[in-house]
């Protein structure tokens, strides 16, 4: 009998650590100023790595991210390989290099979905958050190019103090450009973004107001909106927004998005810098064995110990807690700030 292979809903592959933007909110773990391994494998080794990951799991969907994936010159070869393996592919890009020929090339090679940032309806705000002049024009052009060639786009809105109050106009712009959905991701500090925590992290009240806008516009425009970065129900009653999707940490479950870096190091998700091991050195099954994952899956802040929803919510993003405060069991920044504010209000 064949050994049971772990069933994964999706695998994330960080194609490259290079990027042509310097987003203020960037959570890439190698941007955190720490000792995270840098570099990438050559093309044959990269294909071997992906083959091993797919051989050792049951996974039919791979998300290619970075850095900026389009900066890697052998991206077409990687896509052809995944196409041969009949794996569905999503590309997360900043859109800067998604010209009409580039989009055609990626679509021909089976990219099913493009996840592109739309941080504001205003050029200045989007460009400032992207740390790159011209980013807004580039991403809108990319969205139009993808749609013209019958590809699909989901827009990612990273909600920070700098853009959250104009969410409505941004959703309308995304709608006009034909996106199939919007990911409302409240800023989740990590990587470079950790250094700008107080400048960027929205307050609970700001997020609540934004969710009201998102709920209303999701209905009005018939535009799916998902909130995938955890929003703790003790801070905001998410049942008030029935048309929005809410997600919590999936680490350790079938919905987990294990993340492979360009050197073959595997992590529990793309927000954590804790390396489970290298896939060239061990099997996927061993790397995600419960004894290795338990530190991640069992961690919960002390504040949440008596909460009825602790197993679902898990206190929010543990990776952010660990990256920002050094421990998976700390309260992550959004929770910590929310509780602090509640304490102030309650005197």
């Amino acid at each position, binding site marked *: 009998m064949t050994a049971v292979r772990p069933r994964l809903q999706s695998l994330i592959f960080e194609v490259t650590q290079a990027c042509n933007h310097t987003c203020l909110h960037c959570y890439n773990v190698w941007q955190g100023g720490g000792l995270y391994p840098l570099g990438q494998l050559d093309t044959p080794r990269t294909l071997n790595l992906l083959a091993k990951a797919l051989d050792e799991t049951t996974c039919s969907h791979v998300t290619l991210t970075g850095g900026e994936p389009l900066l890697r010159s052998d991206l077409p070869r990687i896509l052809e390989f995944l196409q041969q393996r009949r794996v569905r592919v999503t590309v997360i890009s900043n859109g800067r290099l998604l010209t009409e020929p580039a989009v055609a090339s990626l679509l021909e090679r089976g990219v099913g*979905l493009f996840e592109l940032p739309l941080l504001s309806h205003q050029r200045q705000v989007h460009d400032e958050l992207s740390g790159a002049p011209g980013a807004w*024009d580039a991403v*809108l052009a990319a969205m139009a190019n993808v749609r013209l060639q019958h590809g699909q786009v989901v827009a990612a809105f990273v909600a920070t103090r700098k853009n959250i109050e104009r969410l409505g106009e941004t959703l309308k712009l995304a709608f006009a450009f*034909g996106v199939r959905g919007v990911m409302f991701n409240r800023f989740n500090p990590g990587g470079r973004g950790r250094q700008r925590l107080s400048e960027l992290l929205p307050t609970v009240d700001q997020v609540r107001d934004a969710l009201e806008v998102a709920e209303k516009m999701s209905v009005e425009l018939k535009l799916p909106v998902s909130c995938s970065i955890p929003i703790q129900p003790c801070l905001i009653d998410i049942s008030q927004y029935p048309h929005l999707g809410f997600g919590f940490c999936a680490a350790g479950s079938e919905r987990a*998005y294990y993340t492979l870096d360009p050197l073959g190091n595997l992590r529990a998700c793309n927000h954590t810098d804790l390396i489970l091991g290298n896939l060239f050195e061990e099997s996927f099954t061993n790397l995600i064995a419960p004894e290795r994952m338990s530190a991640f899956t069992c961690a919960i802040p002390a504040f949440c110990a008596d909460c009825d929803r602790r197993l679902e919510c898990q206190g929010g993003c543990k990776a952010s807690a660990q990256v920002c405060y050094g421990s998976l069991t700390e309260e992550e920044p959004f929770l910590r700030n929310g509780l602090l504010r509640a304490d102030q209000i309650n005197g």
Partner: protein
Amino acid sequence: MNLSRRDFMKLVGVSVASLALTRCSLPIGVTCYAPLPPSPYPTDSARDRLRTCWLSFGELARRTQESAQQGSSEDTYGAELTADHRAALDELVASGELTASVADLVQEAYNAAVYHVWRSNSLMTCYEPMMVDYAPVSANILVEQSAALDEIAAQGAVDPATLETARAALEHDLAFYAMTDEEVSNLYNRIVTEWQAQGGTTPSFDELDLEITPDAQAAAQFIISLLTGQ
């Protein structure tokens, strides 16, 4: 076509699940005096239990949707079905009805079918926000998108060339909606004809160079026999 036996079995499994979910009739082997049981019923033979597993996709879809409404995307029922299916196959292997390699392939097909049904009915998540096939959204939405685009264009901030591309894309979709069924059908026929005129041909199944091993053929045949009660 370079299709591995594993991929072939996944396609078999997903196809069967799709057929079952579109109410494609599978002979149940009941009479008017023995109507359909209301739920998966206790059975004795391993073959019957396997059959029940393959006829449970509607229930899996229903439970997955219910879980999704409650904010969960755990696949508990799918995991139960998968385990039941494996256990029944192991019995057939032990009794010599199936070889271990054929049983593994049948299980591969079933795993893919369960995953397909679950995935199609489950919540969206962070990195798989929505997996929808391309099709123009409703005509009303396109009209509203067009109005929104005009409004944005009037503000003058977006690059004119980008607006032109966005408008062209919208017009493609609107044009599709303006077509009658007959025109759509003619369009598809024209595309096929043009493709064939350029040297492309549609091969018959027998002509496909499918790399299907005898084990994979036996596994596919086993699934068909199981479901047709032969």
